[in-house]
């Protein structure tokens, strides 16, 4: 580190309004949303290996049950997910299947919009459900961070959010940083962005070495570094992409899942004792077709799988109202039929995690959702 971040932060706070950030959070709980952009194939992630139609419809893409990591008599995990299998065994991971947001068409961009805004239809809401969740928390405000260069839609909205992504650039010198701060003071947009950038860099400086390559495990480690702190953020979002496996799915999905497994493993390791307070939700905008397509992949589908992982999760369970894969049971004759609303599951998870009123939480996060609670208890008390 070429710059002493502590001394810089001191100087910056003198110039800016002296606001202490990330301090004295009112909750010990950590909530991390890992979004899988591109429609992750739930059927080859949490594999219904005992279902006869699985092998016949997937053909060469079906995962060999002998290689898959068995969860129970019906489901198994993809072989690239050993860490998640271990956490499942320890009662710290649950898998949700046949889940979907209310979105029923097959556009990534619209599907992600619905998943992130929490609307019933694309572009109906302007802000994200994670941002609205911040408003429900006791202290509200600056307790959320996105580990990406820009704020993802789920975190966009009225509450302030910071972003952090490791940079391989040489860091700017203190003098320039302070002058930039003065230059942006009269500009509301730039002033707010700059304040957030300084705070994130200041926190990261203590844990990070120089600029490291962004791979999944490294991001997990960085994220854990922020979230493990007593005065750190409580809510975080991590973006993953590359799930859109129209062709060459076998190798690509395996690599994607290895990355995800590594990311979760790094979070588990880096969070240490705080893991017991942690809930990680992994979800995608929609699933993929049950049948393999003509090019060694799968096309855009409907329901998929989601994951709840963490020491606070009442794990070791498969949570699903499994619709089956027989032709008559498929959605529009081609996709896994959605039987559980992702919105309700997310709302229930958040309400349980932060001890919020379930109905109010659902109404705030997913205003158009069909009323109801998750049919399952998701977290430990």
């Amino acid at each position, binding site marked *: 580190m070429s710059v002493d971040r502590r001394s810089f932060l001191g100087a910056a706070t003198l110039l800016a309004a002296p606001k202490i950030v990330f301090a004295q959070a009112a909750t010990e709980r950590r909530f991390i949303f890992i979004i899988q*952009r*591109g429609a992750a194939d739930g059927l080859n992630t949490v594999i219904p290996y005992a279902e006869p139609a699985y092998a016949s419809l997937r*053909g*060469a893409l079906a995962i060999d049950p002998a290689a898959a990591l068995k969860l129970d008599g019906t489901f198994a995990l993809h072989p690239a997910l050993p860490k998640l299998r271990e956490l499942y065994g320890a009662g710290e991971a649950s898998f949700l299947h046949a889940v979907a947001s209310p979105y029923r*068409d*097959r*556009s*990534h*961009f*619209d599907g992600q919009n619905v998943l992130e805004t929490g609307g019933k239809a*694309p572009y109906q809401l302007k802000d994200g459900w994670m941002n609205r969740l911040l408003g429900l928390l006791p202290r509200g405000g600056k307790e959320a961070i996105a580990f*990406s*260069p*820009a*704020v993802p*839609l789920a975190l*966009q909205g009225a509450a302030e959010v*910071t*972003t*952090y*992504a490791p*940079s*391989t*650039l*040489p*860091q*700017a*010198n203190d*003098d*320039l*940083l302070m*002058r*930039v701060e*003065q*230059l*942006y003071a*009269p*500009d509301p947009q*730039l002033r707010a*962005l*700059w*304040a*957030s*950038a*300084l705070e*994130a*860099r200041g926190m990261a400086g203590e844990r990070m070495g120089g600029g490291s390559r962004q791979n999944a495990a490294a991001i997990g480690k960085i994220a854990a570094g922020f979230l493990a702190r007593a005065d750190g953020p409580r809510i975080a979002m991590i973006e993953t*992409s*590359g799930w*859109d496996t*129209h*062709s060459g799915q076998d190798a690509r999905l395996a690599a994607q899942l290895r990355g995800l497994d590594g990311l979760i493993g790094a979070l588990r390791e880096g969070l240490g004792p705080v893991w017991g307070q942690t809930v990680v939700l992994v979800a995608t905008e929609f699933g993929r077709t049950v049948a*393999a*397509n*003509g*090019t*060694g992949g799968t*096309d*855009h589908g409907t329901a998929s799988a989601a994951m709840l992982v963490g020491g606070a999760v009442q794990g070791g369970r498969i949570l699903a109202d499994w619709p089956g894969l027989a032709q008559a049971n498929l959605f*529009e004759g081609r996709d896994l039929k959605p039987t559980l609303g992702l919105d309700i599951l997310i709302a229930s998870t958040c309400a349980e995690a932060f001890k919020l009123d379930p109905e109010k939480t659902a109404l705030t996060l997913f205003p158009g959702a069909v009323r109801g609670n998750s049919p399952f208890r998701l977290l430990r008390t």
Partner: protein
Amino acid sequence: MTPPALALNRFGLGARPDDVPPADPQRWLLAQFDAYEPLPAAWKPLARTPALVSTWNTMQRSVRQAPEGQRSSIREAYLRQGSVEYQAGVGARTSSALQTSTPFVERLVHFWSNHFAVSVDKLLIVGLAGGFEADAIRPNVLGRFEDLLLAVVRHPTMMLYLDQAQSIGPRSMMGSRAREAQQRGRGLNENLAREIMELHTLGVRSGYAQEDVTEFARALTGWTLPGDGSGGDATFRFVPALHEPGPRTILGKVYSEDGEQQARAVIHDLVTAPATALHIARKLARHFVADDPPQALVLRLADTFTRTGGDLVSVYRELVASAEAWQPSTVKFKSPWDWSISSLRALGRRSMPPTQASNLMTQLGQPVWRPGSPAGYNDSAASWAAPDALMRRVEVAQRFAQQAGDAIDARSLAPRVLPGALTEATAAAIARAESAGTALALLLVSPEFLRR
């Protein structure tokens, strides 16, 4: 901003120190249509599409003929060569943007290249991305939209990126044969069909259904790359044996054409659909004018598009003539690409080493030809105005300034690159800086330089 500054920044790529602010901004922009060079000097040394296709075919053949154990090393060698092509392409794109005397048209190249995005996230096309911009986009940005679209979707890079090259009609001759031989991984792929409708023409939620996509995909079967050893300059081939026979019904219309013409007829109807005019008009207006562009402007551009049969120059003329495009307040937050190019131009740079250019764009969050999806990079402030992204610009500005040393005096440069647009606050900050480098960095990250 004053009209000359708007012409340079909102429509162009930013001023160079030696640029004279245009006295008649509109005329300056329109004159660029005649002066534009589809293949400027920076692009000339690069391998063109026919050569790239021939290399691709050679690689495919070598893989087929090689024993199992050697195949991956052939692919790896191809990808290494591809990365070299990619870097060269990024370098050419950057130099071309720095050197051009028609910055408005160059911007349009960047706009269309992003509208018809390919992404080297799909590693196999890494060596083909530059050729796509050089041969599908650059020659067609001043023509008819339909010709641009056809050049794009028939280009090998797009056909490989969106899996068209390997799509086979299930009832075609090859499809039947593959079924009999129980070959896996040989069949219909609807990726290109969907993205043409959703991203390239009509736009999402414009009334088409899954079955329209599937039918269009069937119509497109047979469109693929030239065969190995076919020689010549061909970059496209129609293979009747891959084409799904029979009429197709798309958006309620029956297409009974035979062969290659079937998908062309569908594309012609997609191009002339009112939804396409609106979609293109909105994207252009969003790119140049505002994240949420005035509806009256969008409608006027769409009307011009429809009236002229998609003549792009007519649409650009309408844009330049529109009062909405000359609002003095700058509401567009520059993308990392726009900001980098305008910064380098302000510093008088004429080129950048290819590896540096490509690393720079990766560090700033907008790697060239590598958006996360076929939708391309988002064109609104929400995507780019973010804390960490801003910090990176400051770091890059410092590095640029360090490279420039004290050869450039920011106090005299600032009013030249921001004619009539430099605020007193920025001028004062520049004047007060402790070093020439800091002053220059402050100019590049000043509010008026970050927006256009």
